């Protein structure tokens, strides 16, 4: 268990929890929550610099990209061109090749547009990016992404920010069984136990933002998620018992006093 690491695009990580850096009250709160979560990878968004208020705090001043791996995302992109433009810019900021591709298809449910996502994955892989792909929980699509050069498959548990937890365990399990790529549950988790369930299904990691950032006590929730991911992984590796329909006594049946 000790040296069992998460490997993404040949890079090794001790923590299997990836956290987002959005929705926090302040940069200070965000940085502290990340520290408590133990996460070594954080997602970040690419946005215009505020050229009017030049004294706005910069993310890089709070979270050191030399210590924590930045995973630039394409949040807010609704087609392949926007996503490609965003990630090419992200790479230019400082050589980031490990990226999170997320092409949305619907403004209300925020489900991914898988056709645009698939197209983008192919282009990015050819351009040398290491692409972690946010996707729906469809095993066939996951297979296509894998064939297109994805470096990690990141199906949603439920709509982004919904906090509903894993809605389709069967599909996640099928994707797990068919792929050797890192499988990371991305989006829709609501509480720490959801992360445990993801890990017990055999996922390699989970990506959480809202559930920590918007918890009543984000620091406590960050710690809870850290422990939940560890517990889930241990439980998965330990190998659960078979399920039975009926009771199966834990104490010996012989020597009972009558």
């Amino acid at each position, binding site marked *: 268990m000790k040296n069992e690491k998460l490997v993404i695009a040949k890079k090794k990580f001790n923590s299997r929890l990836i956290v987002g850096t959005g929705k926090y009250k302040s940069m200070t709160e965000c940085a502290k929550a990340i520290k408590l979560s133990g996460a070594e990878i954080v997602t970040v968004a*690419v946005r215009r610099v505020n050229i009017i208020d030049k004294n706005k705090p910069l993310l890089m001043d709070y979270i050191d990209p030399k210590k924590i791996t930045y995973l630039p995302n394409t949040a807010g992109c609704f087609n392949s061109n926007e996503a490609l433009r965003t990630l090419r810019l992200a790479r230019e900021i*400082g050589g980031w090749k490990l990226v999170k591709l997320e092409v949305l298809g619907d403004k209300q449910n925020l489900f991914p547009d898988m056709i645009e996502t698939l197209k983008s994955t192919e282009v990015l892989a050819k351009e040398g990016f290491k692409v972690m792909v946010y996707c729906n929980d469809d095993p066939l699509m996951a297979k296509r992404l894998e064939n297109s050069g994805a470096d990690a498959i990141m199906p949603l548990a439920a709509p982004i920010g919904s906090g509903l937890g894993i809605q389709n365990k069967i599909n996640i399990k099928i994707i797990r069984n068919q792929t050797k790529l890192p499988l990371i549950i991305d989006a829709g988790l609501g509480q720490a136990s959801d992360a445990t369930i993801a890990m017990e299904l055999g996922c390699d990691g989970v990506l959480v933002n809202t559930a920590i950032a918007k918890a009543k006590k984000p620091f406590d929730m960050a710690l809870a998620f850290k422990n939940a991911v560890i517990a889930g992984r241990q439980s998965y590796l330990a190998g659960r018992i078979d399920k039975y329909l009926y009771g199966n006594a834990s104490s010996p049946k012989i020597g009972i006093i009558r």
Partner: protein
Amino acid sequence: MQKIKKIQIRVNGKVKSIPVKYSISDLVKNLNIPIKKVAIEHNQEIVDKKKINRIILKKNDKIEIVHFIGGG
């Protein structure tokens, strides 16, 4: 005194007046942008940050300067 000729460009969607013969490097310095923490697009083409002093801005050029912020 002769008035310095100015041209208008767009930076991150906002109109900005700059003198003629103004380079991207001049613009970045004027805006006090930490160059190592941003990426720059000039008319939708990514700019090599090492060459920004050689790129002279023209009227109606569009510049995008982006950086990382919190996101999920």
